[in-house]
C-alpha cells in the first residue's frame, strides 16, 4: 500500500501561539511596569473586574397572582426619611438616591458645586469628603452630609453644625481597611490650607480614626457628636463591604441612625489597583447580610440602610431596595453624568495613553473633563450649572426607572419592593442575594453562615 512520500509536500503546521490565561497580556504588562518603576499601580475608579452584580437579578413583574399599578396614573412613592431613630431633624429626601462622599481636592470646586446643584434639584443629598466642607458646596447643596473621617482634615464643629447629617466614615468599598491618598500634583494652596498640610506633598490619610477603635469606643464617639450638635443631626456610619452582618449590627448597636454600606465597585480617587480589585465584597453579596443584621436586632427600617457601589440605572436602584436597602448612593455614575469619560474628549484621553470609558487616572489631576482636577484651566471646563442640570436629569431617570419597575410589581412605594419580587440568573447571584435561581425554588447557601 502506497503510504505516500516520507517528506510532506509542505511544512507541518506549527503549534498555534497561545497566550496564557494566567499570564495574559495585561498581567504581563503590569509585571513589566512594576519591574520598571518599583512601585504599585495607583488609580481611581472602583473594581473593574467582572463581578456578580445587580445584572444577575431579574424582577418577576405582576401576573395573575399579583396585579400591577397603572404606570401614569397610580402613585408610586419614592420619598425616604433618614435618621429618625435619634436625630431631632432627620433628613427627608424626595428620591431614594443620594450622592456619595467625594472630596474637594480629589474633585474640583466646580464639580463639587455641580453635584450639590444636581442633588438639590432632584431633592436629594450630597456629601463632603476627605478634605472638609467648602462654602461652594454648602451653598449649592440643600441637604449636605458631612463626612467625619480618620484624617479629620478641615474638621471643625461649625461645619458639623452647618451640615444636615454626619457620616462617620469607617471605610469605603474600594478599600476597606485602607486610608486615602492624594498625590502632590493635586495639593494646591487651597487644598493644602484646608488640610493643614504643606502644598505639593503626597498626602496619606489615616486608615483608622485617631481617637477611637472598636464598637464600644464608636458608641462614645457617636454620643460626643450628638452632644456637640445637640442631638439635631442624623449620624450615619459608613463601612466598606467586608463583614456586613457584623459591621451593620455593631454600627446599629453603637447608636447609628443610618448605616451606609459600600461595595467594592464603589469608586475611589486614588488607591492601589491591587487593593481595589482584591479587597472587599461586591455590593450584591453585602446587602442581605446587612439587612439580616438589622432584622435580627428588630431595627430594619428604624436604622436605615444606604447601599452603594456600582449603581448605574433605575433597575439597580429597584433591586437594591427590593433586597432591603432604604436608599442607594451613587458616585462614579454621578461623575459620568457630569461628563467624566465622555467620548467628546477622546483625543485628549488618547494623549494621556487611555481612552474614553477607561480613564481612571483621577489622582493625576489632568482630567480632560475638568472633574478630578485642581488645574484651574481644566476645572473651568465644567460649568457647575450645566453639570448640575445633567446630574438632576440623570437622577430623575434613575427614579422614573425604579418607579416603573415598582409599579410593574404592584408597589405603591419603591420601599414595598421585596426579595419575593426577584429571581437570580446565576447560582452565585442566587446565593448572594438569597433569592431563587430563575425557574426554580432553589436558594443556594441557605442553612449557615453570616
Amino acid at each position, binding site marked *: 500500500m502506497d503510504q505516500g512520500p516520507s517528506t510532506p509536500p509542505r511544512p507541518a503546521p506549527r503549534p498555534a501561539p497561545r497566550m496564557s490565561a494566567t499570564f495574559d497580556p495585561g498581567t504581563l504588562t503590569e509585571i513589566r511596569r512594576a519591574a520598571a*518603576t518599583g512601585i504599585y499601580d495607583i488609580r481611581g475608579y472602583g473594581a473593574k473586574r467582572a463581578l456578580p452584580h445587580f445584572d444577575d437579578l431579574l424582577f418577576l413583574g405582576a401576573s395573575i397572582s399579583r396585579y400591577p399599578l397603572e404606570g401614569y396614573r397610580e402613585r408610586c412613592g419614592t420619598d425616604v426619611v433618614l435618621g429618625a431613630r435619634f436625630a431631632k431633624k432627620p433628613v427627608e429626601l424626595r428620591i431614594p438616591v443620594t450622592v456619595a462622599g467625594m472630596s474637594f481636592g480629589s474633585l474640583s470646586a466646580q464639580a463639587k458645586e455641580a453635584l450639590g446643584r444636581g442633588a438639590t434639584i432632584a431633592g436629594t443629598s450630597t456629601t463632603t469628603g476627605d478634605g472638609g466642607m467648602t462654602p461652594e458646596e454648602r451653598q449649592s447643596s440643600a441637604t449636605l452630609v458631612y463626612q467625619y473621617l480618620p484624617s479629620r482634615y478641615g*474638621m471643625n*464643629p461649625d461645619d458639623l453644625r452647618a451640615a444636615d447629617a454626619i457620616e462617620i466614615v469607617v471605610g469605603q468599598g474600594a478599600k476597606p481597611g485602607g486610608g486615602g491618598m492624594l498625590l502632590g500634583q493635586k495639593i494646591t494652596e487651597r487644598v493644602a490650607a484646608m488640610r*493643614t498640610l504643606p502644598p505639593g506633598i503626597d498626602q*496619606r490619610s*489615616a486608615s483608622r480614626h*485617631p*481617637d477611637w477603635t472598636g464598637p464600644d469606643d464608636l458608641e*462614645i464617639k457617636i454620643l*460626643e457628636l450628638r452632644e456637640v450638635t445637640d442631638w439635631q443631626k442624623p449620624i450615619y456610619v459608613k463601612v466598606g463591604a467586608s463583614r456586613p452582618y457584623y459591621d451593620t449590627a455593631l454600627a446599629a448597636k453603637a447608636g447609628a441612625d443610618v448605616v451606609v454600606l459600600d461595595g467594592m465597585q464603589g469608586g475611589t480617587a486614588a488607591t492601589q489597583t491591587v487593593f481595589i480589585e482584591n479587597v472587599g465584597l461586591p455590593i450584591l453579596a453585602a446587602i442581605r447580610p446587612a439587612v439580616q443584621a438589622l432584622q435580627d436586632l428588630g431595627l430594619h427600617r428604624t436604622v436605615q440602610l444606604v447601599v452603594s457601589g456600582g449603581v448605574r440605572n433605575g433597575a439597580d436602584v429597584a433591586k437594591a431596595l427590593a433586597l432591603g436597602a432604604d436608599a442607594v448612593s451613587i458616585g462614579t455614575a454621578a461623575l459620568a453624568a457630569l461628563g467624566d469619560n465622555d467620548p467628546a474628549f477622546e483625543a485628549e484621553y488618547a494623549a494621556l495613553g487611555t481612552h474614553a470609558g477607561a480613564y481612571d487616572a483621577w489622582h493625576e489631576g489632568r482630567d480632560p473633563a475638568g472633574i478630578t482636577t485642581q488645574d484651574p484651566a481644566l476645572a473651568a471646563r465644567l460649568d457647575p450649572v450645566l453639570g448640575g442640570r445633567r446630574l438632576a436629569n440623570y437622577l430623575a431617570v434613575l427614579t422614573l426607572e425604579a418607579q416603573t419597575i415598582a409599579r410593574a410589581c404592584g408597589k405603591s412605594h419603591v420601599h414595598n419592593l421585596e426579595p419575593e419580587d426577584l429571581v437570580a440568573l446565576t447560582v452565585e447571584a442566587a446565593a448572594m442575594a438569597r433569592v431563587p435561581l430563575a425557574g426554580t425554588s432553589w436558594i443556594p447557601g441557605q442553612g449557615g453562615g453570616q
Partner: protein
Amino acid sequence: MSEHIDLAVATTRDLNGALHALPPDTNRTLWRVLNPRGQHALAVGIDAPVRVEIAGHAGYYCAGMNGGATVVVEGNAGNGVAENMMAGRVEVRGDASAAAGATAHGGLLVIHGNASARCGISMKGVDIVVGGSVGHMSAFMAQAGTLTVLGDAGDSLGDSIYEAQLFVRGSVASLGADCVEKEMRDTHRAALAARLQAAGFDGVDAGSFRRYGSARRLYHFHVDNAGNY
C-alpha cells in the same frame, strides 16, 4: 457667683445644652460641674468664653471640639480629651488617657500629669504641654502645632510627622519614621518659654529641652522609602 450643675441629678445633655445656649457675651462665666464620675462627652463643643470646672474625673472626649472655653478637669481625663479643639484652653490636673488633643486645630491643652499613647495624634495646630511623660506613638502624623513634654516620651515619637514641632525635656525611647532631632535655636527657646509660662510652668528652663520635627523625607512616595512607611 458660679453656676453649679450636679451630674448626680442632671444629665450630660443638661450640661452641654446649658453651655451651648450661652450667648458670646454671657455674664454666667463660671460653671462648676459636680459628681462627673467619669462620664463621657462632658463640656463638648463650647463656643462661649466661659470657665468650666469639672470637680473630679472625666471620661472620653471631655472638652472635645472646644471652641473657646476654658475647661479644667480637676481629676483624670479619659480618651481624646480636647480632641479637635479649635480654640480656648483645656487643663487636666491629673493624667490623661490616649489620644489627648487628637487632631486639635488650636488652643492650649495642659496636662499636669502624664498622657498616655498617641498624645497629639494628627494634631493640626494646637499647643499641648504635658507636665509628666507621654506614651508611645505620640504626635503620630502630627501636622501642625507644638507638643511639649517635661518628662519622657515613649517609643516612636513623631512617627510620620508633618510640620508639628516637638519639645522633650527628658528621654525619648525612640523616634518614629521621618522624625529627627533638630537644632534648638533662640527663636524656639523664646517661643517655648512663652508657652511654658502660658501653661503655668513658669520656673521651667526652656533651654533644657530638645527639639524634634520632620526630616521631610517621606513627603513624596519613593520606592526606596517603602520600608519606612
